[in-house]
């Protein structure tokens, strides 16, 4: 109180006497002075209160933050550190995180020859570190008069370090990035490649160019390098054994449509794609179109069974060749008798299958193949995809030949997808090269009934147990499938000695997990195969080798005896009985 009042500037100037201490003294004061003093005090009090309130609020907030903050408030320290180094282009990795393509910082060596005092010595020292460059060559470059000459682009870290250690003035480094493909040729057609400015030119590098450029998060493919390696190695071995000109293969998860491996031979090195021939860069699995031959009998048979037109007990007389237009449809190994549907499929009768398609009709075949995605380009995430070659117009004669895989050309990836739908319970899942995360919904489309799928599995298993695909039988792995051999069209004519040998199958047939497709272009028969170069002799053994090697990696345990499905056994017994009957009838007729 003593000093409170005089501090007010207005009041101080008037030289007021000290305030009386009496409690009622205020009433003794009169006039302007007392009123002004009162106003001053009130203002002081109000201002003080406001400040006190403000500080209380700030203090309260401080306590709240200190005691009740849940740690979600962003911290400065986190935002200053970038989570990944920016290399300009994201990595491509396989399903297990193995790097398939990555941008790596590199140093390139250049020199300012004017600053180098002893070019002889510098050239000799550099030649020791850079094994692919001679001292003479380096010396020649250092003789230049300019202020800048490249010595070597994209040094390895080791070379960089050692040159740095030489400490020669005039040698400098320019930093840059280089796109590298640690796995070399493996998966080259899928990964693709980039130009010198790391712009994608082919494969995933092209189709995911924008994604790779904009994000630091790697693109995770559905590929498994181990499976890819095995498939490629077996295809190459088969190609070599049968002196073939090319090969293609696919391994696909039937439940997710994920492509675990996709090979096309001959192949190329993505890091040096410019040196590769167009033939080597051609992706036969997606861009190549082939008449797949008897592999198509899977679809014709599935269609006939699914429509209810025939059952496994029905059959056709396959003793007479079909003559339609200028074609004659024959069997490769004629049985010359009535055959049941399982026999037609197991022994790959063209006549029987064509009759099945004839009964079903052209519109039904068209609709069924279209449902299986065989009449339009595959949806796989690559730019290098061809739409199939379909007959135009689709006449009845086309229906007959298409039933056993001639007169329609499709890409191997389409066939793998369609077969996956046939064996997985009857649902078509779009093929993909990108790993599907668990629990992400996939658009599936039912193409055949579940019971048809089961019957087809049994039939495909029988092909491998007793039919044309016996060489694909791997102990305990329950492989099922269908062989295919088709003559190649050369200048509009089918040539007998140039053919495509193929095998499409799945395993294990009691609960299919993976579809494997093997396709060998122009194999030549060997002594070992008695000069046969058919799907059963060429592609089936490759199928067996691939499956035997990939099954342990993919966690498919081999089944022990007794795992053959009971229904497949029943079909076999009944089929054998019918065949005996048919044989007896034929003898009786003759």
């Amino acid at each position, binding site marked *: 109180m003593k000093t409170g009042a005089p501090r007010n500037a207005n009041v101080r100037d008037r030289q007021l006497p000290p305030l009386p201490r009496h409690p009622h003294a205020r009433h003794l004061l009169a006039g302007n002075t007392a009123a002004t003093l009162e106003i001053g005090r009130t203002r002081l009090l109000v201002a003080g209160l406001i400040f006190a309130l403000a500080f209380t609020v700030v203090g309260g907030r401080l306590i709240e933050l200190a005691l009740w903050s849940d740690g979600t408030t962003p911290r400065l320290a986190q935002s200053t550190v970038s989570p*990944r180094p920016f290399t300009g282009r994201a990595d491509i990795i396989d399903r297990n995180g*193995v*790097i398939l393509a990555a941008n790596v910082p590199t140093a390139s060596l250049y020199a300012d020859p004017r600053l180098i005092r002893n070019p002889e010595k510098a050239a000799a020292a550099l030649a020791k570190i850079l094994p692919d460059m001679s001292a003479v060559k380096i010396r020649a470059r250092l003789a230049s008069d300019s202020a800048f000459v490249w010595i070597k682009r994209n040094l390895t*870290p080791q070379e960089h370090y050692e040159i740095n250690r030489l400490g020669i003035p005039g040698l400098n480094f320019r930093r840059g990035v280089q796109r590298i493909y640690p796995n070399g040729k493996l998966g080259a057609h899928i990964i693709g490649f980039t130009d010198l400015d790391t712009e994608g030119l082919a494969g995933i590098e092209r189709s995911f160019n924008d994604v790779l450029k904009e994000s630091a998060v790697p693109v995770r493919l559905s590929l498994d390098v181990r499976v890819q390696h095995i498939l490629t190695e077996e295809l190459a071995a088969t190609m070599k054994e049968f002196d073939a000109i090319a090969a293609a293969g696919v391994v696909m998860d039937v439940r997710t449509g994920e492509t675990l491996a996709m090979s096309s031979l001959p192949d190329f090195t993505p890091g040096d794609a410019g040196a590769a021939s167009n033939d080597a860069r051609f992706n036969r699995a997606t861009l190549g179109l082939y008449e797949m031959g008897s592999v198509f009998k899977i679809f014709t048979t599935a269609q006939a069974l699914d429509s209810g037109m025939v059952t496994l007990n029905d059959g056709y007389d396959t003793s007479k060749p079909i003559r339609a237009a200028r074609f004659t449809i024959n069997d490769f190994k004629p049985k010359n008798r009535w055959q049941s549907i399982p026999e037609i499929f197991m022994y790959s009768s063209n006549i029987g299958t064509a009759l099945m398609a004839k009964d079903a009709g052209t519109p039904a075949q068209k609709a069924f193949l279209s449902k299986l995605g065989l009449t339009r380009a595959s949806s796989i995430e690559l730019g290098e995809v061809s739409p199939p070659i379909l007959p135009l117009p689709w006449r009845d004669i086309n229906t007959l030949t298409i039933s056993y895989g001639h007169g329609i050309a499709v890409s191997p990836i389409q066939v793998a997808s369609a077969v996956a739908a046939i064996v997985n319970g009857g649902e078509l899942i779009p093929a993909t090269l990108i790993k599907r995360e668990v629990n992400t919904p996939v658009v599936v489309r039912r193409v055949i009934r579940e019971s048809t799928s089961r019957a087809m599995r049994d039939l495909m298993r029988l092909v491998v147990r007793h039919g044309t695909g016996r060489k694909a039988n*791997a102990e305990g792995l329950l492989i099922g499938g269908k062989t295919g051999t088709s003559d190649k069209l050369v200048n509009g004519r089918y040539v007998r000695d140039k053919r495509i040998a193929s095998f499409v199958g799945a395993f294990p047939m009691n609960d299919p997990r993976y579809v494997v497709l093997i396709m060998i272009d122009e194999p030549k028969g060997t002594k070992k195969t008695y000069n046969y170069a058919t799907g059963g002799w060429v592609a089936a053994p490759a199928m067996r080798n691939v499956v035997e090697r990939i099954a342990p990696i993919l966690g498919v345990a081999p089944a022990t005896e007794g795992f053959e499905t009971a229904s497949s056994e029943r079909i076999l017994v009944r089929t054998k009985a019918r065949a005996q009957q048919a044989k007896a009838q034929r003898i009786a007729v003759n």
Partner: protein
Amino acid sequence: MGGVRRMAVPLSIVTTLAIAVMLFHLKQRVGGLEKELAQVNRTIGTHQETIQVLRSEWSFLNRPANIADLAKKLLNMQRTPPDRVIRLEDLPVRAPSNSVTQTAGASSILPKSSALTVRTGGLTRQTGSLQ
């Protein structure tokens, strides 16, 4: 009262000076820390680049073809024949009295010298020695 007023001016000057000095020191320290942070960030960047190079190299060394070659050269191993692989749940149970003895019984049945693939949650792990 006069004393207090005389003291107030030097006191405030001293306080101001003290605050200024403290602020200056704080600023210096922040500057130093910022430099250090930049340095650490640069180091992190270099390390990350190195890691990227090393990861690529790791992928390169782990090429399946390379591993296959090395395994052929250095390991005396063969493919496991299907009849040597058995599922844990297919193993015969010796004493079905309670679960503890079941597990004990199962593990004692495992052939010690032969290859055994144990299926655990989709992964296949090979144990045992191969001749």
